[in-house]
C-alpha cells in the first residue's frame, strides 16, 4: 500500500511539471499584455514599457520560465502583476472560499444523491423512481449559471421579506465582520507557515465561526452559502443519484442478495446491510471525480453569487494577463485534483477487500 502511494506521488511530479509548462507557455502566447489589460485606454507605450520592465515581462519567455521555476523551487509562487500581492497570500484568501463552497455543495449533493438513488432503486419503476430520475436528468442538464440566477431571483427577490429569503451574493451581510482565528486564539504574533495555516482556516468562515462560537456570523455565513451550494451541488447530486440507482440495481440482482433474501431478511436490511456497501464502489469514484470537477463549476457559481474564490480569481487573472496568479492557482488546483484522485484510489482498498493496491 505504502509503495503504491509513494509511487503515485512520484508520478505526480512529471504531471505537475507538464501542467506548469503548458499553463506558462499557453499564457504567454495569448495576445495582449498585462499593462494594457490593467491600465485600459490610458496605457501609453512609455508607461507600459516601464511596467513590463518592473515586472520582468520584457525578458525572453524562456528566461521568465527559468526565473519562475527557480522561484518555485524556493516555495515562491510569485507576485500578482495586477495587485502586487503575493500569490500565496491570494491563495490563502481565496482557496478557503472555494473549499468551503465545494464542501457545502458536496454536503448537499452526496447524502441527498445517495438517498434519492437508493429510494429510486428500492422503488424501481414506481412513480417515485420516475420523478426522481426525471429530476436527475433536469439537474444534469441545467447549466449552473442559469440555475444560480434562477435561485437568486426566487430566493432574494421574489421571496424578499419572507422567512425563506436568502442573500444573493457575498459571504456575509455587509457590516458583519468575522474575528480572525489568530485574534480569537491569541496567535497574532505567529508568523510564517503556521500563521498561513491559521489564516487559511480563518478564511473558512463557517469553520472559524463554529470553533470560536461566533454564532451570528455562523448563521449568516450558512445563509449565504445555501444558494451557491445548491447551484453548484445540483449536477453532482443528479449524477450521484443516477449512479447509485444503477449500481444498486446491479447489486440487487446478484446471487448473494438472493441468498440474503432467502434467509428471510427484510428487503430494507438486504439493501442497507448487503447491497448498498457493495454498490458504493462506483459511487465513490464518481464522488471523487465530482469533487475535483467542482473547481470548474466554481468559476461560474462564484461569478453568479459574487464569491471571491479561486474560480473568480483565475477568471480575473486570465482577463488581466496576471500570469503569476494563473500559474500559482492552477498549480494548487492540479495538486488538489491529483490528491483527490489518489485518495479515491486508495479508498477502494478499504471499501472492497478484493482490491489490492500494488
Amino acid at each position: 500500500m505504502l509503495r503504491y502511494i509513494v509511487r503515485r506521488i512520484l508520478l505526480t511530479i512529471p504531471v505537475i511539471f507538464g501542467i506548469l509548462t503548458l499553463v506558462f507557455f499557453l499564457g504567454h502566447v495569448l495576445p495582449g499584455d498585462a499593462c494594457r489589460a490593467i491600465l485600459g485606454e490610458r496605457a501609453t507605450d512609455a508607461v507600459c514599457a516601464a511596467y513590463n520592465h518592473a515586472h520582468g515581462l520584457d525578458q525572453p519567455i524562456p528566461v521568465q520560465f527559468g526565473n519562475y521555476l527557480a522561484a518555485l523551487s524556493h516555495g515562491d509562487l510569485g507576485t500578482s502583476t495586477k495587485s502586487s500581492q503575493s500569490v500565496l497570500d491570494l491563495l490563502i484568501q481565496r482557496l478557503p472560499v472555494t473549499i468551503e463552497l465545494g464542501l457545502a455543495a458536496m454536503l448537499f449533493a452526496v447524502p441527498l444523491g445517495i438517498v434519492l438513488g437508493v429510494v429510486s432503486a428500492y422503488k424501481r419503476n414506481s412513480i417515485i423512481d420516475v420523478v426522481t430520475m426525471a429530476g436527475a436528468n433536469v439537474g444534469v442538464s441545467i447549466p449552473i449559471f442559469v440555475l444560480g440566477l434562477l435561485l437568486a431571483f426566487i430566493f432574494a427577490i421574489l421571496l424578499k421579506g419572507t422567512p425563506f429569503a436568502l442573500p444573493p451574493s457575498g459571504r456575509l451581510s455587509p457590516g458583519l465582520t468575522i474575528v480572525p482565528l489568530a485574534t480569537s486564539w491569541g496567535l497574532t504574533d505567529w508568523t510564517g507557515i503556521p500563521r498561513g495555516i491559521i489564516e487559511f482556516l480563518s478564511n473558512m468562515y463557517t469553520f472559524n465561526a463554529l470553533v470560536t462560537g461566533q454564532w451570528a456570523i455562523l448563521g449568516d455565513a450558512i445563509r449565504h452559502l445555501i444558494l451557491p451550494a445548491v447551484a453548484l451541488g445540483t449536477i453532482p447530486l443528479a449524477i450521484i443519484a443516477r449512479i447509485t440507482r444503477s449500481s444498486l440495481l446491479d447489486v440487487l440482482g446478484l446471487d448473494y442478495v438472493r441468498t440474503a433474501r432467502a434467509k428471510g431478511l427484510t428487503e430494507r436490511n438486504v439493501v442497507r446491510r448487503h447491497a448498498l456497501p457493495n454498490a458504493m464502489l462506483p459511487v465513490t469514484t464518481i464522488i471523487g471525480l465530482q469533487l475535483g470537477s467542482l473547481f470548474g463549476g466554481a468559476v461560474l457559481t462564484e461569478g453568479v453569487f459574487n464569491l471571491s474564490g479561486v474560480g473568480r480569481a483565475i477568471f480575473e487573472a486570465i482577463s488581466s494577463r496576471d500570469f503569476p496568479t494563473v500559474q500559482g492557482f492552477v498549480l494548487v488546483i492540479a495538486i488538489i485534483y491529483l490528491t483527490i484522485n489518489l485518495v479515491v484510489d486508495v479508498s477502494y482498498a478499504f471499501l472492497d477487500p478484493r482490491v489490492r493496491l500494488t
Partner: protein
Amino acid sequence: MSRTRKWSPLAVFGVVAIVFSACGGSATPAPSSQTSAAPPPSVVASAPASVEPYTGLSYPATAIDCAKKPAGYTGEFSSIKAVDRYTVEFDLCAPDVAFLSKLAFATNGIQDADWLAKHAPDKSYVKTTNGTGPYMFKEWVSGDHITLTANPNYWGADKPIAQTLIFKWADTAEKRLQDLQAGNGTADGIDNVAPDDFDTVKNDPNLQLINRDAFTILYLGFNVDKAPWNNEKVRQAIAQGIDRKRINDTFDPPGSEVADYFTPCSVPGGCEGDKWYDYNKDAAIQMLKDANFDFSKTYDLYFRPKVRGYFPNPPGVAQDIQAQFKDLGITLKIHTEDNATYLGNSSKGQYSLFLLGWGGDYPDMTDFVDYHFGTGANGAFGKKFDDITALLTQGASELDATKRLDIYKQANNLIRQHVPMIPLNHAASAVAYLKDVTGAQASPLGNDVFWIVKPGDRTQLVFEQNAETSGLYCGDESDGDSLRNCEQIYDPLYTYAPGKTDVIPNLASCQPNTDGTQWICTLKQGVKFHDGADLDANDVVTSFAVQWDAKHPLHVGNLGTFDYFPALFGGFLNPPAS
C-alpha cells in the same frame, strides 16, 4: 458500530450549532467602530501658524531649468516648494490653464509625508490609508469589500452622514441590480445600470435612477496611414455617410447625445467651430466614387465586446456601422478582440478601422483632445496632423480665455477636416439607489461623493461598484473604482463640486502669477490627518514629489506606473528608460 457511537456527540453538537446559528435570527451588523487612535476634534482655522521653526521642502533641491530641461524630461513642473507651513509654490515651465482642474483629480489627494515614510518599508500604504477626508479606512477583505468609517474630526462643512461606508463590487450590471433589488442591506446603491435596465429601475417603486450626464466620447477611428482610409476625401465621405443619430437613438441610454464634436459641449472650447457633417448618404456615395473608392473589396472593422461607460452596446453599434457601410456599398468584416489585445493593437495603429472611446477625467479640453491628437498621442490614428498638434500645444498654455476658445475652434475645424475619426455619440450612464436614499448624485466625472448621502434610516451605506479596488495609494491608481474610494478618504487641494464639473477650492486656495507659470497655494489651517497629524505644506510637496519623481523611494505602489501623473503634468522627473 462503536465508531458511530464515538462520533455521535460531535455530530449532534455540529448539527445543533448549525441549526442554532441558522435559526438565530438575522445577524445584525456590528456598530461601526470608531478608531480609538482618532484624535479629538481639532480647532479649525486660524490656529497660530508656526510657533516652532519650520523647514519647508523644495523638490527637487535645485529647480529644473526650463530652458535646459534634463534629457528625457517632458514634464511641466520646474519645482514644488513649501514656502512656509501653510504655503506651497508650484513653479511651471509653461502656463497650464487646466492646472486647478488637474489638482482636483483624485490621484492628487494629499498624503501625510511622515506616515508614508513610516509605511514605506512594507508598502502597507497601498492597502491602508491616512488621509484628511470624510471617511477613514477600516478594513479590506480581499475579493469581497472595503469598509470605511466616518471621520469624526472631518474638517469640511458637511460631516459624513452614514457612519459606515462599504464598497462592494460585482462585474456585471445584472448582478449589481439583483443585489440592489434584494434589499436587506445587500446594496443601497449601484454603479452603471445597464441601459436595458433603466426602465426596470424606474418602474420599481423601491428604487430610483440617477442619470450621469454624458462626459464621454465614442468614435469610429481610422488609421490614416492605411488604405483606403489614407485618403482624406474617403474619410470625409464616410463622415457624411454614417447616421450617428440612428446609432444614438437605437443603442444609447436616455441622456446620451449625438456627438457633433469630439469633446462634450460642457467643456469650454469643446463645441467651438463647425458642427460635424450632416448625414447625407447620397453625397457620401458620390464622394466615394469621385475618390475612386474600391467598392469590390471587403474591409475590416475592429471592436472589443466590452461594455464601457462610453460604449453601452458594443456589438449592436458595430453591426449597425457594418449595415450603414453596406448602405454606402462598402462591405465590412467585423473582428473582435479581447480587452488587453484590443487596446494594445489599437494604440500601435494596427487597426485600420476601429471603435473606441474615452471617459473624461477632468473638465478641460486637454483631457480629451491632447491624449488623442496631441504630441503625445499614441499611434491609433496613424500619423499625427502637425497643424492640429501645434494648435493643441498652444491651447494648453493659453491663459486668455477668448484666445483659447479661438484656438480650439481652429483645432475642432481641423479635426473635422482631417477626419482621423468620426465622433459618434456622448453616451450617458446612470446609477441606481434604494428609494429612501437621499443626497445621492452621479457626477459626470464619476467622482461621486458619499459623505452627503443619507441611506434612509440606516447608519451604513453600501455601494456596489464595477470591480474590486486595485489599491489605495491613489497617485498610482488608474481605475475609476479605486479612485472613487480614494475620493472619500483623501482630499486634493481643489475638488469638483458634488455631481458637477465645477472646480472649487478644497484644502487650499491657489493664485497664479501674471504669466501663469507660478501658483501659490495657501492651505487651510487646522486640518488633521486621520491619525491626528497636522496637514502642512511639506505633505503637499511630498504628495506630488512621489508621483513626479520616478526615482523617489516612494514612487513604488500597487502597479508602479503612476500613469495619471504624466498624463496630467506632462512627464516624470527622472523618467524610466523605455
